[in-house]
């Protein structure tokens, strides 16, 4: 997820404790292809060429894995909500992934990776349609990356929609479709690339905190390997803002502090979703190594998996202890919490550290879900807890288990979260006053599938008369 220059900084980072690991990670930038090759043929021949082909292939496969996470989000959200809102949730998710990637090509990619810029905000622009041969070859050096421009783009594009997808789950079952579509498009197109550029685009966050909390030699830099903050906390806190404006589902919070749970309609769908997300995470984190470097990618696979597994275990046992029964939906949320948690430090945390990060995330998420229900923040799928709260946890955990500096991590993640919250609040509010964001009570009770789409998700016992 970081341009090469940043990787080099990290390679120089004097975190003696984790030296070998970092060395491995840093090594991703060291494939020795510094001179511009004479031709494309040359660029892909020889041992360095073969290495380039592998690295590039891995980024592409990782992009495909991240793609399937969108199926994961779709089915997790569908499973945890009522059947009468199923078409709506699926439509929103399908729309977001399509629109997210399209606008990323149109604006986002260049806004997020602008090259030289003021460090805070850059204008976007469409990616090129194709390249002249000279440009293709010129890009195939270690100055650029261990992969092609296209691989770079598609990997990043698959991430882009994630932020809005996270919000989609939190506002489910009462948000008006057109308003949400406008909001999600603007969020993904314009807001997500801003915080992205702060760190991965080489902006102020990447370095700024180093001088503040360290001595500017890179040793106190902000670390967010694959996006605990830049993707997950961003989505989670943007979701909180939207939920605050939108309000809870009708009938969820009753007088006297009583909560009426609104049960999801299919645990198999939710489970399918979590497994798909887990699978995709190997690409999300593994691909963020930005090469197929064997030490780094292998370690990332192990830390990612262990954090997810341990998150599932602690969430299952925590829910059992606190809520008396082992709650499958909590165990599943716990797996996601562990995965979100390790995302910031998947390359610099040791195996047992990753177990700890995941285990703590799994416990956090149970209490967080309960807490948000207590304060009447209605989040049907637990998105704020999983992505927002555990995104912050994961980022600061790098300051504990992953070789980062605690204060840097804390300030960095809060900066991203605060910006996501504020921008989302402004945007959602704007949409509210212009187009409206909430469906009518009747529509909510009858279901958004009929109200927004005139379609049912499971229309089997449907008796009907054909028209005209």
């Amino acid at each position, binding site marked *: 997820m970081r341009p090469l220059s940043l990787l080099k900084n990290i390679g120089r980072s004097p975190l003696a404790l984790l030296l070998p690991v970092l060395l491995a990670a840093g090594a991703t930038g060291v494939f020795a292809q510094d001179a511009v090759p004479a031709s494309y043929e040359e660029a892909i021949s020889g041992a360095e060429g073969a290495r380039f082909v592998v690295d590039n292939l891995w980024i592409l496969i990782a992009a495909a894995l991240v793609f399937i996470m969108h199926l994961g989000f779709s089915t997790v959200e569908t499973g945890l909500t009522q059947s009468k809102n199923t078409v709506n949730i699926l439509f929103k998710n399908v729309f977001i992934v399509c629109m997210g990637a399209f606008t990323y090509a149109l604006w986002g990619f260049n806004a997020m990776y602008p090259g030289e810029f003021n460090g805070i905000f850059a204008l976007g622009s469409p990616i090129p349609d194709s390249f002249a041969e000279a440009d293709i070859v010129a890009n195939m050096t270690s100055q650029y990356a261990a992969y092609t421009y296209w691989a770079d783009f598609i990997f990043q594009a698959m991430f882009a929609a994630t932020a809005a997808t996270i919000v989609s789950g939190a506002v489910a079952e009462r948000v008006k479709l057109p308003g949400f579509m406008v909001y999600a498009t603007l969020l993904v197109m314009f807001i997500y690339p801003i915080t992205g550029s702060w760190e991965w685009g080489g902006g102020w966050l990447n370095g700024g905190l180093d001088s503040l909390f360290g001595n500017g030699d890179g040793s106190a830099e902000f670390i967010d390997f694959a996006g605990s903050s830049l993707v997950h906390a961003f989505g989670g806190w943007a979701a909180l803002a939207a939920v605050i404006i939108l309000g809870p589902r009708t009938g969820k919070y009753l007088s006297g502090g009583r909560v009426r749970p609104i049960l999801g309609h299919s645990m198999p769908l939710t489970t399918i979703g979590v497994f798909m997300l887990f699978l995709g995470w190997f690409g999300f984190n593994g691909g963020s190594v930005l090469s197929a470097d064997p030490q780094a990618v292998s370690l990332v696979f192990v830390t990612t998996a262990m954090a997810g597994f341990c998150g599932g275990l602690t969430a299952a046992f925590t829910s059992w202890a606190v809520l008396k029964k082992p709650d499958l939906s909590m165990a599943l949320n716990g797996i996601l919490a562990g995965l979100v948690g390790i995302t910031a430090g998947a390359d610099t945390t040791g195996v047992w550290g990753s177990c700890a990060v995941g285990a703590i995330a799994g416990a956090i998420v149970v209490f967080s879900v309960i807490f948000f229900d207590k304060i009447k923040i209605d989040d049907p799928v637990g998105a704020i807890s999983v992505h927002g709260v555990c995104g912050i946890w994961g980022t600061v955990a790098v300051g504990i288990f992953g070789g980062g500096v605690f204060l840097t991590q804390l300030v960095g993640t809060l900066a991203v979260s605060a910006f996501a919250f504020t921008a989302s609040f402004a945007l959602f509010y704007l949409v509210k006053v212009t187009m409206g964001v909430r469906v009518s009570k009747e529509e909510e*009770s009858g279901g958004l599938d*009929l109200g927004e789409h*005139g*379609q049912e998700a499971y229309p089997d*016992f449907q*008796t*009907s*008369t*054909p*028209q005209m």
Partner: protein
Amino acid sequence: MKLVKAIIKPFKLEEVKEALSEVGVEGMTVTEVKGFGRQKGHTEIYRGSEYTVDFLPKVMIDIAVTDDLVAKCVEAIKTGARTGKIGDGKIFVLPIEEAIRIRTDEQGDSAI
């Protein structure tokens, strides 16, 4: 004894149940049904073809009550189920000749 059969809007079930509890009804049996009536179904389009959903989801409640409770019971249902909009539903009262509690063999009013 009478069988009070009410067909109501599904999201009103809970209010009706509470209203019934208040007047002393202790048992009822609920069925998911589809209703056809004055409230016209909605016209939808599926893959380009228009069609009307004629039957709307309703909930049917069967309540066996002693004769003296019928009026109160009907009143409670009306209170709980009314929205004032078309499609609120109907209440039918049917005679019951005998009632038996399976567990205890009790018969008549005490079985309800």
